[in-house]
């Protein structure tokens, strides 16, 4: 049975700045990393592989240089890595992205029974958390989001039991396979690639699927297939802060000042 782990290569957002004049992201010289949430999705897939013997295929939609990230997934233990890359996939929003990913998953499912689609909760560049659910909708499979623990998988009965982390409570649910699971970062701590695995991965070729292979309707993918358009990106205005309690001030005075300010701004529920 197959697990498809979806990963995305994202710019290291801690290093991205917004150009104050044009309002666009300055991406130049910013290194790319595997979306941190996806590293947990991959790890969970690999753990299920170790435990139940799944085969893990990783797919990623992105530019050719996303190969670096896919190679890393191989070094970590994925069995196969497929890059979905074509100019016509470009400019996609979450809807169009989930179309392409779903297309790829369906293609993989033709050859092997699909068990789980594993996604990270969200990406750190878009932060929408929509692609995973989008895939589940398009595939018409079970949708389990905010998962922080996989309780068990019953391969024979084709069910999965997971724990979801909701506000102030947990919820344990079962669902039939195939299921799309979107994981939280708490679910596990990712492994580190061994050198033999890295060397092996360096020599493995990454499979490329462009639209010739995928045969998607161009109206449903890329910029054309996107339901949303970005009008402007800007950093929100923020009022300048004030630092209380400089070294010269006595802590007592600083504390008094702080309370006064909080009352002024009505921050205390008195």
């Amino acid at each position, binding site marked *: 049975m197959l697990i498809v782990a979806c990963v995305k290569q994202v710019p*290291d957002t*801690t*290093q991205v*700045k917004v150009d104050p004049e044009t309002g666009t992201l300055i991406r130049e010289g910013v*290194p790319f*990393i595997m979306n941190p949430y996806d590293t947990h999705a991959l790890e969970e897939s690999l753990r299920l592989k170790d435990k139940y013997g799944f085969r893990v295929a990783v797919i990623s939609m992105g530019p050719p240089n996303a190969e670096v990230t896919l190679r890393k997934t191989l070094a970590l233990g994925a069995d196969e890595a497929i890059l979905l890359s074509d100019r016509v996939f470009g400019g996609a929003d979450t809807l169009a992205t989930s179309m392409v990913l779903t297309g790829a998953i369906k293609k993989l499912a033709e050859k092997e029974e699909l068990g789980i689609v594993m996604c990270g909760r969200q990406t750190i560049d878009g932060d929408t958390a929509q692609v995973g659910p989008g895939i589940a909708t398009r595939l018409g499979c079970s949708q389990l989001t905010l998962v922080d623990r996989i309780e068990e998988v019953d391969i024979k009965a084709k069910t999965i039991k997971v724990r979801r982390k909701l506000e102030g409570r947990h919820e344990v649910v079962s669902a039939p396979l195939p299921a799309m699971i979107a994981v939280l970062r708490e679910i596990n*701590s*990712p*492994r*580190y*690639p*061994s*050198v*033999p695995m*890295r*060397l*092996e991965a360096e*020599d493995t070729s990454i499979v490329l699927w462009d639209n010739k292979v995928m045969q998607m309707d161009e109206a449903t993918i890329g910029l054309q297939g996107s339901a949303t358009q970005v009008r402007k990106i800007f950093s929100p205005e923020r009022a300048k802060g004030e630092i209380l309690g400089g070294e010269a001030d006595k802590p007592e005075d600083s504390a008094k000042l702080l309370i006064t300010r909080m009352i002024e701004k009505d921050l205390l529920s008195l």
Partner: protein
Amino acid sequence: MTATVTAFIIVLILAIAFFAYSCYQRFGLVLKGKPDNRFNAIGKRLWNMLFYAFGQRRVVKKPFGINHFVLFWAFMILLISNTEFLLNGLAPDTISFSLLPDGAYFTLALIFDIMSLLALIAVVLAIIRRFTFPPPYTEAKSRDAFVILGLVAGLMIAFFGMNACEIAAGTDRAGVWMPVANWVASWLPSGAAGLDTGAQVCWWFHAIILLAFLNYLPYSKHMHVLTSIPNCFFKALEKVKTQPREEFKKGNTFGVGEVENFTWKGLFDSYSCTECGRCSDACPATFTGKPLQPRLFIHDIKMNLLKNADKDGHKELPLIGGEGEGSVKEEVIWECTTCGACMEVCPVFIEHVPRIVDMRRHLVETKAKFPEELLLLFENMEQRSNPWGIAPAERTKWAADLDVKPFEAGKTEYLFYVGCAGALDARNRHTTISLAKIFDKAGISWGTLGRDEMCCGDSLRRLGNEYVFEKMAQANIKMFAEKGVKKIITQCPHCFSTLKNDYRQYGVELEVVHHTEFINQLIREGRLKLKSDTDLGKIIYHDSCYLGRYNGIYEAPRHVIASATGSAPLEMERSRDNGFCCGAGGGRMWMEEKEGSLINVARVEEALKKEPDTVCVACPYCMTMFDDGLKDKEASDKVRVLDLAEIVANALPDE
């Protein structure tokens, strides 16, 4: 041929055959190790052997070492007498010193007699010591030790007995020239009938003990009698023994997870250990009650080799993580700060640190198994080229209010390699700023790489993540070449040692200087004038391991302190080559210290004994460790920590 000679020939052949067999067994195992060329620079090696083995240079550094010195030399000299003894046993009528002319024979007789007495005294002292003030971290009262000491004492007693009987019987003409034997003889009835038999009995005792001793050696800790002299010959020639690079090719093994993956020298080291315990006595991990004891670590390597001797392929006892003697616990491997104190004191130049790092390499590279704190460190290093994972753009933050120029080939002389801590750690940025001021004051042409600077990779290398270290080293070397960097000043001793010593393995010779030496040179050349009345109270200097033991820089910082304050710094009990680590080296900076007490606190306590007002450090890690340690001891309001550069910046004359 007399019956005695025949009997002796048989005994001798049996003894030698068994000894040869033992050696074949034991040393055959050493040859299973990986290659390591220790046969270069023969002249230098012979000198090392003379100086350190025959000169016993390191042995005598401890007062009781004198006793070993005496025993060693008595042994060496008596080797001549014992060789004669054995040959004489084979051919009594043709080989004997007594056939020499009187002068020569009497001289030899006198020397051997005195040496035997000295050896006997040394043995007795050694026994007394084991009961009264045993050396720390040894098994002072082990059976092994007493067997050997007993055999040596027996040998001497038999020697005296034999000679005394002959003197009393009037069959040895060197009587008065053997004062000890002669004195013993004076207790025997001269010319009595049993004396011949007495001499015979003593002779046989002597022969049997000698051969028993020889045959016991390979099976005891006294194997070092056979191996320590060659081990000094094979000692590392460079001051810093950085272990070789690894070749990252499919099918290779990475690091050492099985004893045979050590080099033959690594295995031979384990045979050479005298179990003197000096390494453990110097070790900060041992001192603070952690399971790591370098002596036991080396011993476990030896035991693992021996216990797995017959098991080709399938090893019954794993080298790492097994139970009991002969297996090293994982936490032991991670506790080392790579401070090098063990290697500095080891009288026979055993290389502990490379062995420990070899095993870390195995854990990290082959097993991907390490303390969890390190996962974040490794990711940060690989991703952002600094241990904290801070965005590289922050590297220039310290220079916000300064006019710092970028390094430009042809225009700038020195690259100031700020280092991750110097650029990104709030406290250590002050050191960086001080250095910038000093350089400007002295009119140095310097520049930085700004946000393009990358981590040197020190922690990764010491932690055994050679694969990522190699990538970082290569990236740095490429950048240095592209930017035309030749001369580098570093703020951090770890950057210093890595760029200088480790990068050499990649075929680059960079002229790297640490700020302590650089400032010292500026002062000497008169390019930097200091007010010598800086009021920082009593200053105590803490030696950074990577500056001191790794690179021999002890005097420069002390001179600088003297120039900046007008007086020499206070010294801690353990200083210079005997200095005690702050606890942060070897990647320990990024790890939790779970076992035992805290190393940095131990060091702070040692410093506080001298009641300083200021602790002077020359390393950003030491800075952090002392800062934390002083807080721990609630002493940070009384004692401050300053980097040497800050002290100097403080002493710069106002315009």
